[in-house]
């Protein structure tokens, strides 16, 4: 068990790129856990564990919506940090026992994500003032460049924050599990918690009125399908 500096750096850089998809550029869902965790896992040599992290965290955050100026809890940081923590906890990258602890130790990074997003948005207020001054001076190209500067700033801020989160939370996970090795077994069920809570929350929000009939029908099909298969 040891934190891999290379894994942390790769996670940080990839996280910086994927974080642009969240607000600054695109919104193609590349920053969702199913994509970001699977991609990070594939690059770090644990694609299946990465996909497992992605599936576990995806549903949990589906009801956090970026409505208006509200900054919701976004799952990008925990998805990436969980994969980096898994690589630190299981350097062979073959096992599954360390996936639930990695998810658990990565969850607090969701608050760092929100904090960084808030800092970035506040820092853009200054850019707006400068852009308006440049437009008054008819320096249109420079004003446009400030918009691109804000996107670059989002990349740099998120890269640094994800690097920091991956290094500290992976280090904490290694420290705790080295001290209490039996804890990993006790955390085996924890990997299911985010998915179950997410599925329950989403169902509670979306299934209403006649929707319960469709929901029950889907449940029956799911049970029957996997029994037959």
């Amino acid at each position, binding site marked *: 068990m040891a934190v891999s500096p290379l894994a942390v750096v790769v996670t940080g850089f990839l996280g910086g790129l994927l974080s642009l998809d969240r607000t600054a550029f695109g919104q193609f869902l590349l920053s969702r856990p199913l994509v970001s965790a699977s991609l990070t896992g594939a690059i770090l040599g644990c694609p299946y564990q990465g996909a497992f992290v992605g599936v576990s965290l995806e549903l949990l955050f589906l009801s956090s919506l970026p409505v208006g100026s509200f900054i919701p809890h976004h799952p990008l940081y925990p998805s990436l940090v969980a994969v980096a923590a898994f690589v630190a906890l299981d350097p062979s990258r073959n096992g599954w026992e360390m996936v639930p602890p990695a998810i658990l130790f990565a969850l607090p990074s969701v608050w760092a994500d929100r904090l960084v997003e808030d800092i970035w948005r506040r820092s853009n207020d200054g850019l707006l003032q400068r852009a308006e001054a440049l437009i008054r001076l008819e320096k249109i190209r420079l004003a446009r460049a400030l*918009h691109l500067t804000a996107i670059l700033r989002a990349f740099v801020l998120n890269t640094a924050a994800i690097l920091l989160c991956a290094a500290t939370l992976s280090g904490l996970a290694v420290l705790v599990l080295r001290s209490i090795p039996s804890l990993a077994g006790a955390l085996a*069920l924890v990997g299911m*918690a985010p998915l179950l809570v997410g599925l*329950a929350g989403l169902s509670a929000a979306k299934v209403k009125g006649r929707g319960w009939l469709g929901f029950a029908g*889907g449940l029956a099909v799911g049970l*029957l399908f996997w029994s037959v298969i």
Partner: protein
Amino acid sequence: MEKRPGLAERIRFLLRSLSLQGSWCFQHMQGLGFFYILSPWLAKLHPENPKDSLRRHTAFFNTNPYMASYLIGVVSRLEADGRSEETQGAKSALMGPLGANGDGLFWATLCPLSAVLGICMAFFSPLAGILLMLATFNAFGILTRWKLFERGYDGADKPLEYIVERKDRVLINKLSSVLTPLLGFLLGSVGMKTGIPGTVMAVFLVALGLTLRKQRTWPVLWTVITVSVLLGVLGLRMEMPWFPLK
């Protein structure tokens, strides 16, 4: 005189609209992004003095990033027709309804739908699941951006008509009716794959769902995690991976 944007210009509008929120700030929100999208078009329309029209478009602006294309179309047309004084009114009147409709359609319906579709497919192949999720959401997202720009540009004389039609609401209802059976299927699949009987899982999730209607997610999540840890300490284990990824 009307100056209609050609294909290259419409592609440029589409690409630039992807960065609408690139400089999101609390003061003018997407204002600088809106300026960035329109600036080449305005520079072309008013080559001698683009300053005044450009300054107008750094003003407060906030709407759903996918639906913004409609307003970009409306404003481009109004500017091309020399009706610059009407642009701020159109933006003020439309950004709220477009934002509400877009958030309901994209964030509250299409995003969960494509994610649940992707997870259901990931039971068979994780890669196929990811691709299905991205394809479902982005095909719709890019098509919406492209079509709404054209609709806005052509319908700039009656910009509220699109909102009054309430087509988004109809689409949200249709997509929601697909989402609920998929959620049921996912629940049944998770039940079967974890070995927990589907009915037990359903009762557990309904109870959890009812709790979540009254409580916020995070306290419930930490409670479930604590109970899971206690069960683990008492010796309850589950074979990993319960999700069939290999």
